[in-house]
């Protein structure tokens, strides 16, 4: 926990900040022993040519499967980065996997998805005393994550699904997932994993509800667009509620002032990605007409992160590493508050590797402005001090 440059035991990292895809691949794969490698996750920064990168990766991997997506930032061994090609190699000794690409994602065919997922899960051979989980990397702008993950949750039963939505910086235009050496738009990648390591799912945000409530009076739930709030144009009313002018609305404001929906005793964040010219607000998660929402207020982000990551296994040991799906809006807020370095330090100390998403999936629920992660521990009875 206290190592400033703690190296995980059960995965190997490769990284390159080169702008040329071929060079970046060469640099990032240099330290990875592909012979011992089961599969590789790759998190792609904005700006690399995907047409070149895909084949380069495929060639460099020498037959080892590589999966990944485009991102809005990477969590590397040094914390937050924006232009790093990050490779996380999972060794054969501890991991097995099976992959499914759902394409196209929109229009979504829930029965198809359910059938394919079910079949693959059934075919994925079970190894005694190994643990199973599923990772989902979905297109971040097709707005199908809610239906996708709830379907998967239903089909896969006791297999927990964790994941993040692919991103393209802060553009919110085109996101890709990598599968079979190619980057795909309008697609989602499901990875079924089996490991002898123990894991634990993490999910937390850093918001509390305020007293301010609002009612969505006109919306397009399919497109996650809200046209009217409290009977008034949405952007205008949102600006009034958060205390700024319509012209000031920007990702930073959205990041700091999310809207929450309450269910039972819990609040779920519904993040706003954009305000359109016609006063409509574009959301990153499912909304509905007539929905009562609550304005959220931020908590200390560093402390909640630290608390959220502070998990341990039965032996009291800290995770060997944490695969992290961290919402880009959190990152925006963190950068706005100039907390990048302390947060990076925390991420680094906790050995968190992953990327900044357009949305996070945790056990069938698609959310925004949260941190979803999977903490991997050493195998039971093999405490690695």
């Amino acid at each position, binding site marked *: 926990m206290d190592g400033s440059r703690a190296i995980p035991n059960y995965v190997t990292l490769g990284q390159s900040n080169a702008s040329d895809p071929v060079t970046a691949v060469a640099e990032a794969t240099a330290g990875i022993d592909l012979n011992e490698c089961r599969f590789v996750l790759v998190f792609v920064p904005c700006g690399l040519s995907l047409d070149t990168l895909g084949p380069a990766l495929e060639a460099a991997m020498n037959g080892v499967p590589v999966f990944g997506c485009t991102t809005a930032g990477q969590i590397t061994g040094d914390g937050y980065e924006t232009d790093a090609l990050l490779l996380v190699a999972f060794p054969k000794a501890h991991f097995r996997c099976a992959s499914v690409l759902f394409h196209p994602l929109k229009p979504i065919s829930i029965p198809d998805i359910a059938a394919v997922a079910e079949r693959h899960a059934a075919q994925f051979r079970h190894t005694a005393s190994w643990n199973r989980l599923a990772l989902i990397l979905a297109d971040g702008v097709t707005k199908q994550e809610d239906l996708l993950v709830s379907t998967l949750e239903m089909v896969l039963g006791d297999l927990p699904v964790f994941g993040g939505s692919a991103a393209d910086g802060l553009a919110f235009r085109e996101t890709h997932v990598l599968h079979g050496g190619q980057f795909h738009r309008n697609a989602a990648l499901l990875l079924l994993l089996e490991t002898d390591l123990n894991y634990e799912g993490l999910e937390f945000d850093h918001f509390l509800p305020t007293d301010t409530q609002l009612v969505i*009076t006109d919306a397009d739930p399919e497109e996650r667009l809200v046209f009217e709030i*409290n009977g008034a144009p949405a952007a205008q009313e949102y600006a009034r509620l958060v205390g700024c002018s319509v012209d000031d609305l920007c990702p930073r404001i959205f990041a700091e002032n999310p809207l929450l929906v309450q*269910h039972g005793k819990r609040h779920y964040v519904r993040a706003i990605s954009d305000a359109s010219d016609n006063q409509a607000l574009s959301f990153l998660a499912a909304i509905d007409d007539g929905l009562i929402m609550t304005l959220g207020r931020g908590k200390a982000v560093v402390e909640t992160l630290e608390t959220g990551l502070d998990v341990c296994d039965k032996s009291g040991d800290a995770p060997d590493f944490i695969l992290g799906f961290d919402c880009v809006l959190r990152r925006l807020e963190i950068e706005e508050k100039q907390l990048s370095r302390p947060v990076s330090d925390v991420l680094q100390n906790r050995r968190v590797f992953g990327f900044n998403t357009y949305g996070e999936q945790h056990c069938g629920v698609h959310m925004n402005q949260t941190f979803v992660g999977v903490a991997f521990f050493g195998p039971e009875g093999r405490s690695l001090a």
Partner: protein
Amino acid sequence: MSLIDPNEPPARQIERQARIIDALVRRASRQNEVGISAYSAFQSAIELQEQVAAKTRDLEKAATELESVRFDRERTRRNLDVALSAMDGGFALFTDGLLNVSNKLFQTLFPDISDRIQPRLSLSNYFALLEASASLESTDRDLQQAVRHMVGGSGGASVLSVVLELRADRWFQLNMQRISPFSVVLLLTEITAIVRQSRREREDLIDEQADYLQAAFENMTSGICTFSADGAVMMYNGPFRELLGLPFTVIQKGVRFETLLHYLRSHGLIAHDLPKPLTVLRERLRSDNAVRTRVRQGGGRVLDLQANLLPDGGFLIELKDVTLESRATEMLENRVMERTAELTRANARLTEQYEEQARVEEELRLAKERAEAAVSSKTRFLAAASHDLLQPVNAAKLMLDTLNERAASSAFAPTVKRLHRAFASTEQLLHSLLDISRLDGADPDMVTPTDVSLGVLIKGVFEDQMALADNKGVRLDAVPCSAFVRSDPVYLWRSVQNLVVNAIQYTRPGGRVLLGCRRQGNKVLLQVWDNGVGIFPQDQERIFEEFARADNVAPGSGVGLGLSVVERACRHLGHKLWLRSEPGVGSLFCIEMQQVDGTEVIDESKGLTQPDDDAPMSAIAVVIENDEDVLFATTQRLQQWGTAVLGASSTEAALAHVRDMGIAPDIILADYQLDGDDTGVRAIEAIRDLTGTRVPAIVITANRSETLRRAGEDVGFTVMTKPVQVSRLRPLIEWKIRWQSPQAQVDAPTKVGNDSGGAGSSLANGRIR
């Protein structure tokens, strides 16, 4: 904050309220619709999630409980598995008395009944088969009875264990356990290894100990035999039997101690005494724990016997052959005794020898005393003879002087001169004889080392021998010298004189003799050179012997005692004497002496005026001389010098003359040795007493002893040795009268003078270069 912006106009506010209500109603009514929308999916997902979460919590709780139950069960099963596998033996479960389950070993252990062991075999039948099996050798208890006990008695023992011995030394343990009222478990465990090992260990242990003990016993050089408490042989070794000469038939395990003893006695294997009867031995062992004694066997063998009590009340007898040791001891003792005897004898011999030696020593001492006495008497005789001979020679010389003067111009002159020379030779010979006899004597007074002035000595000798040299036609020279040496003045004088005389004698007329000294460090070499005939090397040692004469010397030239005297004197004085000579060239005689710091002695004749031979010496002299001839000669000589002489032969006569005369004489001339015990010294003292005057006195004597010289110092007289040299006598008399007469007597101390001392030097004048 209210839902509706209060700043809006009321109409707008109302409109918005309406829209809100509308939206809420729409949504509420949509809740019942069936269909899938994204939000409903989300909603159902989170509902599901919550339900799942709740169920998961319940499940986890249940799972935890289940897990612990399962774990316990697993553990139990594992333990059971382990236990069963650890049994490594046959297993069978009989339910309701019939065989239910069994394993392979159980079925095949007894090959001849294996085909009969089938399910539903009754327990009793199984045991019946077992008992009948050819493979079964024995059991440790009755099987049938055990089975009846087990099967019948429900309240009886639930566990039964039987040991089965199979063929080929295989061993099994049959465990029968009632695990429920209906079922019985049979276990067959192989215990062959355990049985064999324990048996082997037991055997090995016993064998090993016995072997070890026996080996230890056998390897001991001493004979050992242990007896039980009641005196029976338990264990013995070879040496024990051999030492005692017991046949195998007699010494056996269990044989009684008394039997052994009896055998030994009756066969004469033990000379007499021991071992004591058993009871006595025991008694002593009990009190002392150990008994040690020595046993003598026939044939001179000696055994050392030691008996020790053993913990079980028995005892151990240890025998050692100590024949050699005891023999060695005896031999040593004998040898010591012999040595002691030898030593005693040697001691006696030594004592005898010592006594003999003492006796011899005593005899030697007596002989020595006798010899010394003889030598002494010889020396005394010789001294006396010389002395007595000197008296007449003295008288003759004095008379010859007188005659010489009177017959100077007569025709007898040459005869008188030759006569004079003959007497001079005789006198010298006598002097030498006297010297030799004295030097050979053991008189410690003989030599008296004092500081001697060589200058005075050389001058004296030179002057004395001037005339001799002139006569011979040899030139005599002397080199003056101021050195002092430690020596006896009389003998040194004599030695030098002899060397000079000798040199003159052996130098042809026209030759030269040189007398002088040379310093060499702190030594002084007194040398006499001549260019005479020289001495052949073969004669150079011999010439110092008495009466020796070199071959190149014409006979009759000298008696040959001179060098002998020199040699003796130098030996006594510790001076080194050597010579260098070459025939035809000359000789050098050298006396090497230690130089000392000396001061010039005040010469008592200093200031002595040149005597006038012709001027009459008018004085009254008392001459005391018991030899009539000498008295006559002396009287005549003195009267010739114009002196009035009162001659006396004894002290009394002299005293009579002095009384008659009424005045003290001017000088006393006294012979030392007078008749009887009368001496010149006594006469001098008597006259001085009588006259009350310290009359100057001269004692003339042949006695050259130091004693007299000292007496002269004490009493106050000058000693002149015989024969008197007239040339020296007159100046001495004149000097004494002038300086020592009572009138002239200042307190000048009486000085010792003699015939060489002052008188010679007083004559020092122009004749020395």
